[in-house]
């Protein structure tokens, strides 16, 4: 990562003056074609800057190609290993003793027969639970999965009681939910069964070669020692599987149904599979009403989401760093007090502070009234939330208010870690404060906080709270609003998604498609940055 820098800074600045534009770009071009350390060092500062940008974009296609190549390799490897697995299973059965063979049908039998009672019972228990579940419920859910239900609710009138009674029948939602769960369960069984076969094979080999099998006591002991990680991860991963993975799988599936307010799958109409229709709706350039197609609306919101994420991340980053440096400066007193004041915004729940601030900036809120009536500085209220541009700037400013303290805390720690002698020697060389900042502080910070910047960028893309509590997406964007619901100029993809879900039509399927698109965008950005960032970082003037 670190490169030796043998050149004298004086030299490059002298050379820059004499470069003709032709040479200027030729050198960059040559370097882009084939990178050499020497060539890079010969560049002037401006050239280096341009080179870095160009190199970034040049690397994108490669990064994408590499990604797809990796996928290809993964698929190939997976296919090979599946074949290997089957081969191994076959051989285990063919070569195994009777205990092993019985274990193919009665899981854990081999373990019990060979004295590993605890393992065996766990295997057996799992198999029994699975079979019982499939008979009692799983089979039904699985069989209903292709149709998502056959009979919706029915109503009948009772003339004597003068009342309508409803009989609820199939529930598409539950069928989908438990169908997915059942599939998860089946996968778990297959995995466990495979584990059971493997263990039998191993146990057999161990015994043949005269080694002793692990006793139950050994197993238990290893759970807090070699295998301690399994013990530690068991609970967290189960939670993630049930409450994160399963819902995501479910919601991806919803994108292929017509699940919405009018087809809620139980109390009115059942919903059913519709294939790729929803993706067509969102991605086609055909107008879906309101004079603008879904895709155009999506594009508009995406553009603002990216702008917002970029500005929100970097304004906070640099201003936070700036504030931290001010407070850290030698000779500034009351450091703790300044920090404590700022940190209040981190401590106080956002729904209080943001809701309050949102009311403050309203057209008839405190700020406008003070400026207009009390101070008389303006004759009409400032359109903080009414004008698209004002609203966008205001949310970014308020976000700075929310975000600076956090960044200040983070950067304070890092700033203190920068070796003091770096600055000392820079001062001796006569570098001024700005030069010290650009030569030492900034590169150091960027290097350390690179990954943080990325997570903070994607985090801001999905920053629901700030937008929802401040503006709720307002002001309305007339062009984009229409059949897709009401869309505002400050709406991010995530708040739009929320509006679709809770809006007049409750278009869950559309929300699901938008959610998948959000994922694609975030994943793409992360992928590109991860793949490109290290190569850029190599060239960083960092020591």
């Amino acid at each position: 990562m670190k490169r030796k820098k043998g050149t004298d800074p004086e030299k490059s600045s002298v050379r820059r003056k004499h470069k003709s534009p032709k040479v200027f770009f030729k050198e960059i071009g040559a370097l882009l074609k084939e990178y050499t350390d020497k060539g890079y060092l010969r560049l002037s500062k401006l050239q280096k800057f341009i080179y870095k940008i160009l190199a970034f974009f040049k690397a994108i296609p490669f990064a994408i190609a590499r990604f797809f190549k990796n996928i290809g390799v993964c698929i190939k490897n997976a296919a090979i290993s599946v074949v290997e697995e089957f081969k191994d299973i076959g051989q285990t059965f063919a070569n195994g003793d009777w205990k092993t063979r019985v274990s193919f049908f009665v899981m854990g039998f081999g373990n019990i027969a060979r004295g590993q009672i605890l393992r065996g019972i766990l295997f057996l228990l799992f198999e029994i639970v699975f079979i019982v579940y499939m008979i009692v419920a799983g089979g039904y859910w699985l069989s209903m999965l292709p149709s998502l239900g056959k009979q919706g609710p029915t109503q009948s009138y009772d003339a004597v009681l003068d009342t309508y009674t409803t009989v609820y029948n199939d529930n598409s939602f539950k069928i989908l939910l438990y169908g997915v769960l059942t599939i998860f369960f089946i996968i778990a069984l297959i995995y466990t069964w495979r584990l059971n076969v493997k263990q039998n094979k191993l146990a057999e080999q161990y015994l043949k070669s005269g080694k002793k099998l692990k006793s139950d006591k050994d197993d238990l002991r290893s759970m807090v020692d070699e295998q301690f990680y399994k013990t530690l991860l068991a609970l967290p991963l189960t939670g993630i599987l049930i409450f994160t993975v399963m819902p995501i799988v479910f919601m991806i599936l919803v994108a292929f149904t017509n699940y919405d307010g009018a087809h809620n799958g139980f109390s009115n109409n059942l919903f059913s599979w519709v294939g790729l229709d929803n993706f067509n709706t969102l991605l086609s350039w055909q107008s879906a009403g309101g004079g603008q197609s879904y895709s155009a609306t999506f594009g508009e919101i995406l553009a603002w989401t990216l702008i917002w994420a970029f500005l929100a991340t970097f304004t906070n980053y640099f201003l936070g760093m700036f504030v931290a440096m001010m407070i850290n400066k030698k000779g500034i007193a009351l450091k703790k007090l300044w920090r404590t004041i700022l940190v209040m915004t981190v401590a106080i729940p956002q729904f209080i502070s943001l809701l309050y601030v949102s009311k403050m900036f309203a057209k008839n809120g405190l700020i406008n009234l003070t400026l207009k009536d009390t101070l008389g500085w303006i004759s009409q209220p400032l359109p903080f939330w009414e004008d698209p541009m004002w609203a966008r700037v205001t949310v970014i400013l308020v976000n700075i208010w929310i975000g600076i303290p956090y960044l200040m805390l983070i950067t304070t720690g890092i700033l203190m870690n920068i070796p003091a002698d770096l600055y000392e020697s820079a001062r001796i060389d006569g570098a001024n404060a700005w030069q010290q900042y650009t030569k030492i502080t900034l590169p150091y910070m960027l290097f350390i906080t690179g990954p943080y910047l990325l997570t903070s960028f994607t985090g801001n893309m999905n920053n629901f709270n700030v937008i929802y509590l401040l503006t709720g997406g307002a002001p309305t964007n007339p062009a984009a609003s229409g059949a897709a619901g009401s869309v505002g100029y400050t709406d991010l993809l995530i708040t739009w998604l929320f509006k679709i879900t809770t809006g007049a039509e409750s278009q869950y399927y559309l929300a699901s498609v938008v959610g998948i698109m959000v994922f694609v965008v975030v994943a793409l950005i992360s992928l590109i940055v991860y793949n490109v960032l290290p190569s850029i970082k190599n060239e960083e003037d960092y020591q």
Partner: protein
Amino acid sequence: MSKNRHHMGIKTLNRLSNSAIYVLLVIISIIWLIPFIFIVLQSFRVENTYQVGYVIPQQWGLQNYINLWNSDFKRWYLNTFIIALAAAVFQTIIVLCMSYTLSRFRFKMRGPLMRFMLILGMFPGMLTMIILYRVLSDLGLTQSNAVPGLILVSVASSGMGYYVSKGFFDTIPKSLDEAARVDGATRLQVLYKIILPLAKPIVIYTILTAFMGPWGDYVFARYVAFGTSAGYNVAVGMYSWLTNDQINNMYTTFCAGGVIVALPVTILFLCLQKYYVEGVTGGAVKG
């Protein structure tokens, strides 16, 4: 420094820049504090209950706090407190298990697992709200039972947030573990005898963030507890006071509620600020 001592110019410059910084810091402090001071002031206003164009109450009093006491606020507060407490305990355990493991153990699935969770984190969580509601509803953990439901969901998915504390564990030298292992300690003993005492800042950081989270949880909490006041948390309950049909009656009560909610959380935070800073800087950036 010694080199600059005889340059009087630099000294004056330094003094000048320091004064500029003080001015800036004072301005910043005012901007940062103003909304909070306003909330506090308005919570003591008793002459009316709607939004007005002045800050200092014409009549001071505790009426808004009495209103709070007479409303369902007590219940919401208790709910939130229980959730926060439970989250602080269980979420911390889960997060520490997860991050310690991923920092200290090298096993076959470690890389794929971390990548998988990174990808999972890229899905907008908002999407899964509907399904989580249904799952909770099947378990009977919605509406009036929303509190255990919310605890379950927040704890169950908290493993995803291992990032910061893993970063912190990474900074504790591995040689300590190895030395203890050579002395015959099991992994479990290494964890609670050696690592945990050293990880005090990150433990407190995790507890603190877990405890603070539920106080601001609105969207999902509303979705789970809708229509049942007894299941609301403070955010859901108080948000309804700012809707169009209630804001005129409840605005100052909202401010009073805001003060009551913010006070303990802020005090706690300020007391433990030191650990928070150590946690963030130790973990967040090294992850």
